[in-house]
């Protein structure tokens, strides 16, 4: 044993004990190493466990990827639908506005066709119709304003009277 070359002035009894302890330590290490070295290997089992983990990880990854793709697809489809609806509404609004403008001109289509007047006369008629429509709107608004102004709430009655008094004075 090499310990004899490395000792540093210990008592003979201690040296003997140290030598014995080191000898037992080496014997123990040899026995453990031989046993572990010649034991059956479990590489196949480990590989199987490892492959299961790999499969599970791949499955989870695929699931996540598919889920995110489906979500993205659904979102795109939803936005397209919204855009379609918005475009349809806009088109309807445009069509309604067009109809509203064209309606006065088509009030007397037969007479207009039968008379076969010039385009300038037709334009005049259209503008006259538009003027009459706008004057009707103004009348309607004025009547609404007067109705609303007449219906003063009870709480505002003193103020309304005061205003009337001031107006008369």
């Amino acid at each position, binding site marked *: 044993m090499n310990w004899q070359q490395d000792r*540093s002035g210990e008592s003979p009894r201690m040296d003997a004990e*140290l030598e014995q302890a080191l000898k037992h330590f080496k014997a123990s290490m040899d026995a*453990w190493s031989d046993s572990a070295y010649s*034991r059956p290997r479990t590489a196949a089992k480990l590989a199987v466990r490892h492959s299961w983990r790999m499969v599970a990880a791949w499955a989870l990854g695929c699931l996540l990827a598919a889920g995110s793709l489906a979500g993205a697809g659904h979102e795109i489809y939803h936005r397209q639908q919204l855009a379609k609806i918005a475009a349809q509404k806009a088109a309807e609004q445009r069509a309604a506005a067009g109809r509203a403008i064209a309606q006065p001109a088509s009030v007397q289509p037969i007479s207009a066709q039968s008379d076969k007047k010039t385009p300038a006369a037709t334009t005049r008629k259209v503008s006259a119709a538009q003027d009459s429509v706008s004057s009707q709107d103004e009348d309607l608004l004025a009547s609404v304003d007067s109705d609303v102004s007449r219906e003063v709430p009870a709480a505002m009655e003193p103020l309304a009277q005061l205003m009337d008094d001031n107006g008369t004075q």
Partner: protein
Amino acid sequence: MRRRGASTKVMAAGTAVEPMTSATAQEIAAQEFARIVETHRPQIFRFLLSSLRDVDLAETLTQECFLKAHRNWSHFRGDSSAMTWLMRIAINLQKDYWRNRRIQFWRQTRTNAVDLDEASEWLPNGERNAEQQMLAREQVAQVWQAVKGLSERQRTVFLLRYVEERELSEIASATGLSEGTVKAHLSRALGRVRTELRGTR
């Protein structure tokens, strides 16, 4: 140990008889390496097992050690013995392992390292009686306890000396230390073992 010095077979008189083909040289090198693996693998495994106290890890690092040796076999010039060269690779692998574990301290690494009591259970079946067996087991446990308290370098030197029974010059060559430093590490390690033995007496 000198190898691959010449690519021709040389007779005793020094006359080249036939040129060695590259395939033949490779075959001879492979056979030589296989023989070295067969001879030294148990020793490298034992050293790594005693250092790490983990059978699976010791096997893995032993495999890595011989894989590295195989890759660098062409660079081995035989300045030291093959065992010393292999031991140096094993020591470096072990150092890398400890360094990586220190760096990755936040990772919950699973370790199979056995505790000291379990490591002390291993004893050869001799003709000793139960009392002697128990005494021997106790002494082994005390040495393990002392080894546990050693620094990484002291432990390596101690195990190379008292488990692998390497010469001081071989230990110095394998660890890259001077012989004086190796002696100092051994002295401290033995002092700790003595203290442990004295303390529990």
